């Protein structure tokens, strides 16, 4: 078991952090081993991590430290090789593909570095997509989509195609898509990686606003400035958590 240094820097001044409540996500000894050409690569080695509702956590670390693998496991895009993963109190480490898809759709909102908007779909349709998979009626979807787009300030661009938007606007739409289904947690993978600093700041401000409104966010970033936006930073190195800092505002 690797040594984990857990430092509580200071008491958060913001109410969403509720350390006393049951964790939304609980990872216990999660490992991930990739087998390539008979070579074992240990991407994650015994990760213990709790994320509570309302937390804004950033996962930082150098390239190849396992940040993205951890985020994939958290987002149920991948399964751990060992350990347990419970989401909202339920074990999700070894669910079937359809079950994982269903939970991903309802409980997790993704924000990708490269936005990953579907070029052939309008802004509205992109945001609507996860709700469609949920089988939500069109009228209800409209309400959710409009609300999400208004929340990120993109309501006036709903009929545009992604190619007609700037990078910052595209990421806003991606955030709206992640929010639309009211997931339990937003997972953001380098959300500013493809943006200039001005647009990057704007997106980070948006995440901050969402967090202030109660959203639970887990963000992977290697940019120290943006990592500081979160109220907790987990540092990974060689697949291990080497530092877990709760930052005061």
């Amino acid at each position, binding site marked *: 078991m690797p040594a984990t240094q857990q430092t509580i820097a200071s008491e958060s001044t913001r109410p969403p952090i509720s350390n006393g409540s049951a964790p939304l996500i609980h990872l216990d000894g999660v490992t991930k081993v990739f087998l390539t050409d008979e070579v074992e690569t240990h991407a994650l080695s015994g990760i213990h991590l709790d994320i509570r509702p309302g937390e804004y956590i950033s996962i930082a670390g150098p390239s190849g430290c396992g940040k993205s693998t951890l985020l*994939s496991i958290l*987002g149920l*895009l*991948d399964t751990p090789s060992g350990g347990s993963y419970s989401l909202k109190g339920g074990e999700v480490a070894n669910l079937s*593909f*359809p079950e994982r*898809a*269903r939970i*991903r*759709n*309802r409980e997790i909102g*993704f924000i*990708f570095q*490269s936005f*990953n908007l*579907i*070029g052939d779909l309008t802004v509205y349709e992109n945001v609507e*997509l*996860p709700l469609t*998979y*949920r089988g939500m009626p069109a009228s209800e979807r409209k309400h959710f989509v409009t609300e999400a787009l208004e929340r990120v300030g993109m309501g006036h661009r709903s009929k545009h195609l992604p190619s007609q938007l700037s990078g910052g606007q595209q990421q806003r739409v991606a955030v709206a*898509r992640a929010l639309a*289904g009211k997931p339990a947690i937003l997972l953001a993978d380098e959300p500013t990686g493809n943006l200039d600093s001005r647009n990057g700041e704007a997106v980070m401000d948006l995440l901050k606003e969402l967090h202030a409104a109660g959203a639970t966010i887990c963000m992977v970033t290697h940019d120290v400035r943006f990592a500081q936006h979160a109220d907790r930073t987990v540092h990974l190195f060689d697949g291990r958590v080497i530092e877990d800092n709760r930052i005061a505002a």
Partner: protein
Amino acid sequence: MLNEIKVALRGLVKTPGFTAVAILTVALAIGANSAVFSLIDAVIVRPLPYHDPSRLVLLWEQFSAQGLDRIPVSAPEYLDFEKEFKSVDQIAVFDYTAFNLANGGTPERISGAVVSPALFSLLGAEPMSGRTFAREDQGVGHDDMIVISERLWNRRFNSDPFLLGKTLILNGRSYTVIGVMPKAFEFPIPLFNVQGGQFAERVDIWKPIAFPPEELKARYNRSYGVIGRLRPGTSVASAQAELKTIVANWMRLYPDNYSTAAGFGARVYPLHEQVVGGVRTGLIILLGAVGFVLLIACANLATMLLARASARERELAIRVALGAGPWRVLRQLLTESVILAVVGGAAGLLLSVWGLELLKRIGARTIPRLAEVNLDFSVVAVTTAVSLGTGILFGLIPALVSAKPELTEALKEGGRGSTAGTRRNRIRNSLVVAEIALALVLLVGAGLLMKSFVRLQNVDPGFNSSKVVTMELSLPLVKYPSPGASYLGGESTISFFTEAHRRIAELPGVQANACTSILPLSGTNSDSSFSIEGRAMKAGSPGPDEEIRTITPDYFRVLQTPLQRGRFFNDADTATSEEVVIINEALARKCWPGQDALGQRITFSDPRKPGVKWITIVGIVGNIRHRGLDLEPQPEYYIPHTQSPARSMILAVRSGQDPRELVSAIRREIQSMDPEQPVANIRTFDTVVADSVAPRRLSVLLLGLFAAVALLLAAVGTYGVISYLVVQRTHEIGVRMALGAQRSDVLRLVVGHALKLVGIGIATGVVLAIFSARALSALLYRVGAFDPVTFILVTGLLGAIALLASYIPALRATRADPMIALSRNT
């Protein structure tokens, strides 16, 4: 250029799967096109293998009021034509005959022809050895010589160099062999749509004509074909006008033989048209079908090349970034497609060689001039041109799209879809739509023909052909003399067949056996006019002229044709007993509508003259489809062999088991009666029936084959496009999965895209098929050109196959790992 070829070859070798599918696609299309083009070249385009064939015409007669078109000519009529018809500078007569050859060994019946000596010079045909007939070698007493074919010389006489001058015994008479015709010479050539004559077999013996004296008096006894060579500068129309004058003169001279009301006339037809006219439509439809196959294959090739170019977008961008101009990129891509087309074309030529060999085997009795079909220089030249054209034209589409890559996008790590990519997608989608549309047209055509064929197979022919074997027996005049007309035998002929029936009936397994002068669906026919008792012959009005057969008593028991009224013939119907006749229902309805035909009398002689021989109707039998399964039964009448002892008869034997097992025992019985009597053309009745629909079967087979190839290519095309789509959209699919899409959602997405393409393709195809199916109308039987069931079934089949082809890559897409998909920066 060498460098480009080297690079292209290296690239193709590196992707053996792509290369193999591309070459096979081109090979299938080029193979089918070369084979059909060879066929059309040999059958329709190439002139007939005679001297100046464009001036050769056939002369037929007609009785249009009785529906008799292109019927043969009688001996006196021919002699009149020889004297009076000045539009031709040469004229000759011919007729099929059969020779029993018994020069030691097994007696054999050989197909032959009697011809006037002028025939060979008229055709410009020279013997390979010896000579052909001289002008004086004709007429009774001057016809004891023959010319034989190289085929017979080789097969039967082992190419004996000393055969010329030797004597052969044919039909019990001696004939001197005076010449051997070369292998390629064929005449009479198989003709189509000619009624009343047997014009199908390739002949091996030619004998000078000697009209029997009784034939020279009978203007009504028509059995000869007439061929002429138009004088230079004479048109068919002017020859036709001259014939009209000649016929008008006959009507004046022989009012008893010709009547205006019967619509008698004579017409000339270009020989080439007569030989190939019957298959022209079918071949043109086939050409259209293979043209479609070629288009589909080209679309496939272009689709595959587009996908390949997409995969190489980055490589091409690097090349351009390093200074390669658009022409250079274009040349590189074109080199690749031309190599594929040329190699595919060469493989296609090989396929067509095999295809033609196969076609020669299955189409021997169906397509005229099939022996002349070969892959000659013109076919190879056209194939090469088509292959190169295919390579350049369809390689050009992807090459043009890819020659100017969008560098900034393509070179960017994770560069997103460029406009070239969008353009390629649009072209690829359009090509798949086109493939599906064209395949649908072919499938509809094949479906309609297949349905026609099935309907035809289910037609009740009026007899049961199963477990019956048939064979031909022709008793020679010398051995079985006749008191009157030479085509009829006498007592010895009647005795021979009566005894043969008695002996065959005793063979184990035989249920019934009988003879007929004409077998249903065998391609031969005979008709004769008669008068009905109590009905006055009106001047100028034609009497009934219906199809006539001579049979022995058990004929209808062998055929299992039902007796409706009266009785069958029996042993009491002899040469000296009351003359009797059996008619079919169609004749009863036509000549005695609303009356009882049984007991009525007819005569072949003029009822106005004294001493009329009346023939009493003793039985009415069910109708038989004689001319073809697709043609309505005609009125027929049957006379007993004892009262009209034809010398050439077809023996039909019904057995309880496989009738072929009886053949050697039957042959033994016949030869124990006459050791020199051959038994010829042994076929089961089922084969006779099957042969009668052989042209339709061949059309169904070939169009079905081409439609299957089209379907396969369309499926491969759809599969390729959807596979590519899946690869291209892997990232998008990953995003969707990350957002919670289930496998079924992904499946719906991919199959939905395919469904859209298939739907547009099918809609376009249905419109095209509605227009093109009209061309098939002439080949259809009891099926409309717009048969909704066929359209629906074919659409369903194509849709299902295309969707299946898209389902496989769609399934693959659902198994994509979203993590891997998202990590791909496509």
